[in-house]
């Protein structure tokens, strides 16, 4: 149990996917102008990450290893994750238009998101068990959402500031992201992970 908690904490804070591993930077910069959309993106990523972990874990241990083709891991994972997200998108669009309105627009952005693929690969590298893998995915997703919301909150405040002309827009966003990342470096050493 303590082991699982450590994996969770480690994935959220110490090895935050966005701010420490620098994975999933494109949605981090792209959909972080407002807290609301950042939250929507975070929810979508959480969902996809958890489902992707489950599926890739099965692919790894029931297809790739038995057939001895672990070297095709990346291709197989991309294939599976991409089609999975597509599938989920279609299902949501049909079954719940409301959810699709709030979540669906972010799904295509995640199909080939490096954070999702990175998570699946890391999961295998670290040789996590199925349960550990799910907890790790959850932690990574919560960490991603946290980073998104913090950053969106910061950007909303930066919008109100008299930023020098040459720094406006993406430039100041990148500076802010760097500072936020620096702040998260403070968690290093909190948990071995």
């Amino acid at each position, binding site marked *: 149990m303590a082991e699982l908690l450590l994996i969770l904490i480690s994935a959220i804070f110490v090895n935050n996917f966005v701010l420490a591993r620098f994975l999933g930077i494109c949605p981090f910069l792209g959909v972080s102008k407002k807290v609301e959309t950042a939250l929507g993106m975070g929810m979508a990523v959480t969902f996809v990450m958890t489902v992707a972990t489950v599926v890739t874990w099965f692919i790894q241990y029931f297809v790739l290893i038995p057939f001895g083709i672990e070297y095709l891991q990346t*291709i197989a994972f991309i294939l599976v994750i991409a089609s999975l997200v597509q599938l989920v998108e279609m299902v949501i669009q049909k079954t719940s238009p409301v959810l699709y309105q709030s979540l669906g627009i972010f799904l295509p952005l995640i199909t080939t998101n490096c954070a999702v693929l990175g998570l699946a690969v890391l999961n295998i590298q670290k040789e996590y068990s199925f349960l550990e893998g799910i907890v790790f995915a959850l932690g990574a997703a919560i960490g991603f959402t946290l980073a998104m919301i913090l950053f969106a909150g910061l950007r909303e405040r930066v919008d109100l500031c008299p930023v020098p002309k040459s720094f406006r827009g993406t430039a100041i966003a990148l500076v802010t992201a760097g500072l936020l990342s620096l702040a998260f470096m403070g968690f290093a050493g909190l948990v071995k992970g």
Partner: protein
Amino acid sequence: MLAAIISLGAIGLFAALALGLAAKKFAVEVDPRELAILELLPGANCGACGYPGCSGYAKMVVGGDKIAATCPPGGSSVMDKIANIMGFAPITTEPKVAVVICQGDNRKAKDKYRYLGLADCQAAQKVADGPKQCPGGCLGLGTCARVCPFGAIEMTADNLAVISRKKCTGCGKCVASCPRKVIRMAPLDATTHVLCNSHDKGALVRKYCEIGCIACQICKKQVPEAYEIENFLATVVYEHYDKAPAAVEKCPTKCIRDFMISYPEGSSFAEATVPLRKKDEAA
């Protein structure tokens, strides 16, 4: 090797089947014409058509049996294509641009008090009807330039709004944002305008503005059909815009301007004086 091909192929096949089935089972009807129209639209979401954004406009066109509103930024070329997609009779649209009918910048027009407040025309207008002595003149605080989705409005160094006839798409957002109604929509072909918005009598206008219309009637005498004077202010009759330039040189206060020849003083849009008339384009 064989195992690799077979297993990956199987995964791929499975995924393809699942997706294919899902696409059938969970298909959501989207009118392809709506998407095609959305592609055509400028995508500025300016709201000039009266619908919420370009997607709202596309929905309206597909949902109705005729085109209930035009897309001013898109102009006639876009409207023709939309009519083509829908199989409707083409709508003729007259391209319009917005014109600031004032040249009274800080140096030419006098203020009635010193305004030290929020740099917003609507806010300034609430303070004793604005700092300009002229009741209709441009306040020069740049509210229109901020709302323009196309970057077509610039503020000169002496605080006068000038609209580029090249960049303006005629969406009319600036017209709605101006508290003094000094921006007017006019046909693109009409390049000559009386740039004054004061209905005060000539003697009074002279007191506060060097470049205002004093209703001297000279332009009307020169080209009677192209100008009319109402309430001490001359305006160009846009039906006869082609005859209007003849009076430009005669105006004693130089408040009539032909944008074919020059823009108001201090504007950087001078490059836009290349021929803009439809006839020239066709020729």
